Every structure is written in structure tokens, then in C-alpha cells.
């Protein structure tokens, strides 16, 4: 499989805290990579390093062979790596449609065209009835959908979804997971799915990477991860 993203030996510190230590991983074309780990294990930091929000102390982030370290976030977004935020960050005082238009303007300068594309995407994620609502008035579940729609209109080749399921009801979660699979099969977008809900990630991912305290402790297909002793220890504590 072709690797579109390759993270090699990334280390990031905040003062004395080691947020990431020599983390390496890769994402293949059309692959959904699950990224799990307990609170504070460095999942979001890794996303921030890939998208250029933080510059790592060591290591490389290679996207189609090109090193992204040092590029500002907007350039990385232009290259086709798009993220969503764990705590959703809609443009609150803009309507839902305007939020998505901002995203779709990345690939088009024409407002009318951008609007049409945005409406299509909003229908697809299930926000068709909320087009003119101010995005700050949306519920958590719908905000997550909005983040997803905004990311999708940017026509990425790699999407980084930071806990796009947290705070959702079970039914909403199932819907979103089906949606992700649909997006992958229809648009061929690769994804890194950062998630807390291990069960959900197991369902959707082709492969899983587990972080703990900033280090990669396991990697493999969902079934082997579920049986991995280190992973069980991290999540459930040591067996007595």
C-alpha cells in the first residue's frame, strides 16, 4: 500500500513535560488509522504536530515524501491534510452554510459554486435542515457534523478527526461511523481517527496505533490490539 503520510521519530516537549517521544506511524492510501490512548497520551498533540500548529523538537512528518515540519497550518491544509477539532470550533456567529462555504472556498473562488457544494455536503452529513441556523446554536452532535462537513468541502486527501464521536449518543455515533466508511469508499479519503471510545474505533479502523504517555506502545489490526496485554494494562490497569 502506498503511504501518504509518514511520521518519523517525532518528539515534542512542553517545558518539562514530554508530550510525544519518538513516535512513528504511517497512513496508507484510503486507510483508516485508529489512534487511541488514555487521556494525556499525546493524541491531540500528534495531530497538532502533523497540521503544523506545533513544531516538533525532533523528527519528521512526511506527506507524499515531502517534509511538512515548519510549514504554517494553512499551507498544510492547502496541501490536503485537513483536521477537525476535539472541542468543536465553528465560526459561531456565521450560519451553518457560511461555515461550510469558508471551507469550500479553499478549492474554488466562486461563492455560488462554493454554496452549491456546501449544501450538497451538508445534506450528506445530515445537516440539511439547519442550513441557515447560526452555528453557535447547534447541539454538540450537530457541531461535530458541521466540523466534518467543513473538512469534507476542503476536498482533503487525508482527514484527521480529533474525537469526532466524543459527547455523542450511541445512535449518533453509529450514524457517524457509517458516514466515515461511506466517505472513505466514495471519496477515497484516508483518515486518522483519534478516539476515546475504543469500541467505535475498533469497528471503523483498518489498523490501530496506541499511545500512552507520549509513546507508541502498540500497533496492529483491531483484533490483535484488543488482545494486546500492554493495551489492556493501560486502559484497565494491571492484573492483580
Amino acid at each position, binding site marked *: 500500500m502506498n503511504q501518504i503520510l509518514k511520521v518519523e521519530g517525532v518528539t515534542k516537549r512542553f517545558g518539562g513535560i514530554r508530550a510525544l517521544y519518538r513516535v512513528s506511524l504511517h497512513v496508507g492510501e484510503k486507510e483508516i488509522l485508529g489512534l487511541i490512548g488514555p487521556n494525556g497520551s499525546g493524541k491531540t498533540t500528534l495531530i497538532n504536530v502533523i*497540521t503544523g*500548529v506545533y513544531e516538533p523538537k525532533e523528527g519528521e512528518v512526511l506527506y507524499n515524501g515531502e517534509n511538512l515540519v515548519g510549514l*504554517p*497550518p*494553512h*499551507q498544510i*491544509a*492547502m496541501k490536503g491534510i*485537513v*483536521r477537525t*477539532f476535539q472541542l468543536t*470550533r*465553528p*465560526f*459561531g*456567529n*456565521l*450560519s451553518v*452554510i*457560511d461555515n461550510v*462555504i*469558508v*471551507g469550500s*472556498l*479553499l478549492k474554488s*473562488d466562486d*461563492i*455560488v459554486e462554493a*454554496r*452549491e457544494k456546501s*449544501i450538497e455536503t451538508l445534506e450528506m452529513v445530515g445537516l*440539511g*435542515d439547519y*442550513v*441557515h441556523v447560526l452555528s453557535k446554536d447547534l447541539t454538540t452532535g450537530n457541531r461535530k457534523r458541521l466540523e466534518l462537513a*467543513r473538512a469534507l468541502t*476542503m476536498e482533503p486527501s487525508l482527514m484527521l478527526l480529533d474525537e469526532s464521536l466524543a459527547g455523542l449518543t450511541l445512535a449518533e455515533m453509529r450514524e457517524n461511523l457509517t458516514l466515515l466508511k461511506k466517505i472513505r469508499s466514495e471519496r477515497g479519503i484516508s483518515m486518522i481517527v483519534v478516539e476515546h471510545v475504543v469500541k467505535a474505533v475498533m469497528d471503523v479502523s483498518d489498523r490501530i496505533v496506541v499511545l500512552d504517555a507520549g509513546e507508541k506502545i502498540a500497533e496492529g489490526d483491531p483484533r490483535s490490539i484488543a488482545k494486546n496485554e500492554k493495551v489492556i494494562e493501560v486502559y484497565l490497569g494491571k492484573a492483580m
Partner: protein
Amino acid sequence: MSKADPRDYLTRNRYLFYIPIVILFFIPLLPIPIYVMHVLVLSLLFAYLCTSWALISGFAGQVSLGHTCFYGIGAYTTTLLFHYYGLTPWIGGIIGIAFSAIFAFILGYACFRFKVRGPYFTFATLASTVILEGLFVSQSQITGGELGIEMPYIGSPLYFQFTEKTHYYLVILVLWLCVLFLSRRIQNTKFGYYLFAIREDEDAAEACGINTTKYKIFALVLSAALTGFGGVFHSQYYLYITPSAVYGLDRSFQISSTALVGGSNVWFGPSLGSFLINPIVEWTRATYGGTIYTLPLMIYGLLMILIGRFLPEGISGIIQRLISYKREKDTQKGRS
């Protein structure tokens, strides 16, 4: 669900804007007292300045309290070039605008490149006006210091000078309309959408592929250049400028507070504020100026408090709410 542009309500009801504009053009034909004419010119000048200010401070959300920098640079460049070299303000004005834009670029680059945002940007702009005012006061052998400098009166349109107030009125009316339509245009383009995104959440805007630094600098330079031309108009209208008149902090506050009262998030908001506030302030100044010296300022303060409490989006907020209510109704009609 309607696929139409949600702004189509405004487009369909264009006459709401065109009728007042036509009336404004016919006002000079009426026998209007000079003082009223002066108030109209002032209102239009502030409408112009506030609309320009809103491009960076309302649309892009980077509140500037230093727009008098650009205003003063425009006014002083024109006046000094005319005073010392006899250069017509039409050309001097262009140079003044260029200087305003260059100053804005330096200020914007210094701030935005190094992530000076929000209140810190506001302080930087505030400091700039104070510094520039001090600079122009101190260089009195050139600028005339605190006493200011006069523009020689020639009274010819070739020198941007008119014999009648109504002519100035028409000039500022046209200028205001230009900036108003520019602002409206921007609101419906990629540039406008990007500025709104930056105002709402800069990091999320970056994640959407927006070069926030570039767009903020561009908005500031555009806003400054327009404001600079306001300064050029000021120097020709009064034919006499002092550092405190063009760089004074009170003017900076006046621009921002007027725009906020009208609502700075939408193209027509700042103008509404100006047409509301300037007549009231001028009237109180004329009536009570001798007895209750600070009354105009008190009115500003009171309005700011009331607006902040009841209409945080300014007067234009009411209109926008009405429009979105109409739009909802139209959408529902379309469905059934």
C-alpha cells in the same frame, strides 16, 4: 430547502437602499442652512470613516483604536505638500493615501506576523496614534506644532477646494457611496468570508487553509488607505489642521464607538451609527455646548452602555434579525 442565496431578500428589495441614496443627492437643491449642511457633511465623513474602519475591526475582528494614524498621515501629507511645494491635493492626496497604506503595512506586519492579536493589537494601534501625534507636535518648524498648519485657500476644484459647502457634501457623498459598495462587495466574496472566519476563530480559520496573517494585513492596509483619503478630505474641508484634530484619540474613539453603535459586522451598520449619532451629538453641542460642556461625551457613553446591554450587534443587528426572520418565512413557504 431553498438553494437560493440567503441574501436574496436584500437583492430583491434593493429600493430600500436606492431611495434614500437618491434623496441624499437631491438634498443640496433644498434651501438648507449652512450649519445643517455641515452636520450632514460630518455625518457622511464619519459614515465613510466608520465603514472603512469596520473592514479590519468589524469584518476581521481586529479592533483598531488607531485609525487616526492613517487619517492624520493622509491629512498632513496633503497639507505639507501643498503648503511647501504647491502640489495639488489631488496628487498630494494620492501620496498621502500611499503613505497611510505603507504605515499600515508596517504596523500590520509587525503585529500580525508575530501573532499580536486581540487587545494587544488594539494597544499597538492606540500607541501608534499617541506617538504620531507627539511626533507632529514636536516637529513644529515643519508642521507648525500644536498650533497647526493652514492650507492656502485657492478655491478651485483643481486644488480640491470648493466655494460652496454643498460641493464638499457631494464629494463626501460619492466617497461614502464608493466605500459602502466596496464594503458590500467584500462581504459577498471569498475575501469577506475569510475575514469573517478570522474574526470568529483564527486557529480554525488557519485550519481551513486561510493565510490569516496575509488577509489581516491586506484588510488593514485597505482600511487604512480609505481612512487616509478621509484625512485628505478633512484637510481640504477645514483648510487647517492640528495634530490633536487629526491624530487625537477622541476621534479614534469616536470612529470605533460610532461604528459599534451601528454594528460593525455588516456593511451598512457603521453608516447607520453615524447618521444616528452625529446629528444628536452636534445638536447637543450647539444647544448645550456652552453650559454642559461634556454632554456630547455623556451621550456617547450612555449610547455605548445601552447598545452593549441591549443590542451587542448594534442597530444593524435588529435589521439583520428582521431579514433572517423574513428569510426563514420565505424558506418555509418554499417548502410547503
